[in-house]
């Protein structure tokens, strides 16, 4: 069922480009599209592998930027399943990127390339160490900070929702969030995992938004 079914007001706001409506649609579909990008998909008889982590953010942003363009919004009639529309955009972007990177031919039986598998193994080890250290860090947090982590990061709630759930101000939530991240960084540095953290950071390089401002 599309998000717009039975919600004409949302559809009209979305087509008009209302940022809150766009945000509503985004939050409804973003996790689904991210999973698609990471897992890959079948294209006919060919298996298209998932994207490396460094590319997921870029393609996710591109997917929604295209889907939310004025032409795309105005052209959407609200009847077709919106998920299918987003998936088509995402898949085309993944295929285009694979072609640009030279991964043109896919052997459905071979699966992932060997190089990618080796790199993945190293990353799994590092990720495991980081996660273990993080769990150790979390066990040492006070009640308030632990609740913030649970609501904001584990349950992926907005700052506004977290503030309401914890009966604190949004400013307090922002402050706590920054403190917890800083404290985790210090903890990882103390246990000698700052290099692994930096490696994780390098794979998540930010990409600025494009031009196109009025």
């Amino acid at each position, binding site marked *: 069922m599309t998000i717009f079914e039975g919600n004409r007001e949302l559809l009209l706001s979305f087509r008009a480009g209302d*940022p809150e409506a766009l*945000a509503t649609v985004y939050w409804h579909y973003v996790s689904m599209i991210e999973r698609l990008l990471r897992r890959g998909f079948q294209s006919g008889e060919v298996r298209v592998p998932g994207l490396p982590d460094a590319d997921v953010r870029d393609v996710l942003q591109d997917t929604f930027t295209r889907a939310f363009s004025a032409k795309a919004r105005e052209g959407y009639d609200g009847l077709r399943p919106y998920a299918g529309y987003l998936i088509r955009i995402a898949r085309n972007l993944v295929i285009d990127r694979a072609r640009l990177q030279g991964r043109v031919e896919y052997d459905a039986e071979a699966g992932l390339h060997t190089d990618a598998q080796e790199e993945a193994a190293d990353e799994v080890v590092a990720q495991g160490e980081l996660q273990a250290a993080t769990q150790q860090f979390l066990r040492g947090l006070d009640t308030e900070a632990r609740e913030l982590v649970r609501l904001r990061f584990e349950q992926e709630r907005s700052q506004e929702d977290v503030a309401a759930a914890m009966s604190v101000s949004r400013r307090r939530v922002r402050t706590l969030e920054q403190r917890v991240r800083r404290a985790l960084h210090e903890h990882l540095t103390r246990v000698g995992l700052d290099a692994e953290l930096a490696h*994780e950071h390098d794979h998540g390089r*930010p990409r600025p938004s494009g031009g*196109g401002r009025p």
Partner: protein
Amino acid sequence: MEGNDRALSRLLSGRPSLSRPEKEEILEAVLADVEPAPRSESARSWWAVLGAVGAAAAATLVLWVNPGDPDAGFAARGGTEGPQLAAVCAATSAVGRCTAGGELMFELADARRFSHVALFAFRDDGTALWYAPSEQQGTSVPIEHDGAMVLLPTKVRLDQDHPPGRYTVAAVLSQRPLSREEIRAAYERSPGQGIVGRRTSDTAVIETEVVIR
């Protein structure tokens, strides 16, 4: 987010996928590339625009003038004592930045000694934009205190009167309802940069900056 914040956020989420803050960052970038919604009559009902008062856009927090306590002195510019104002983008929860077409909300902190507030903003070209009180309201609006932090009911749609640029949002806090003339007078009496500070009636002026893209 800066530095290792993305990686730290993912570790805290316990999943290798994008964290909530990362997804919010992506949404902000997406909205920055989207053409704003066209002006509509419903948007008009959320705010009222008047003519110019004229002031150059200033940066960040301003003084808090505390006339009730003769020994209080003044909080330095950018200090954390006294009332504080934050402008929050409704769609992304970002503080101090939003996209054209979006909606701004306002948070007030540590302002319990004041019962009323007026809100307005200055564009880079000096044009003043009244947010509260509206012409119909006439006087500064009551603050419904509920804890140290208050989310004001005033919301502002960033339509064609809010082109991309830097804005100074000002709040005049008072212990009684003020007319627009009194609000202007209180604001014009407040110290500018190079703070000195002085005693006035029971009002305080605070500012914050917003960047609209």
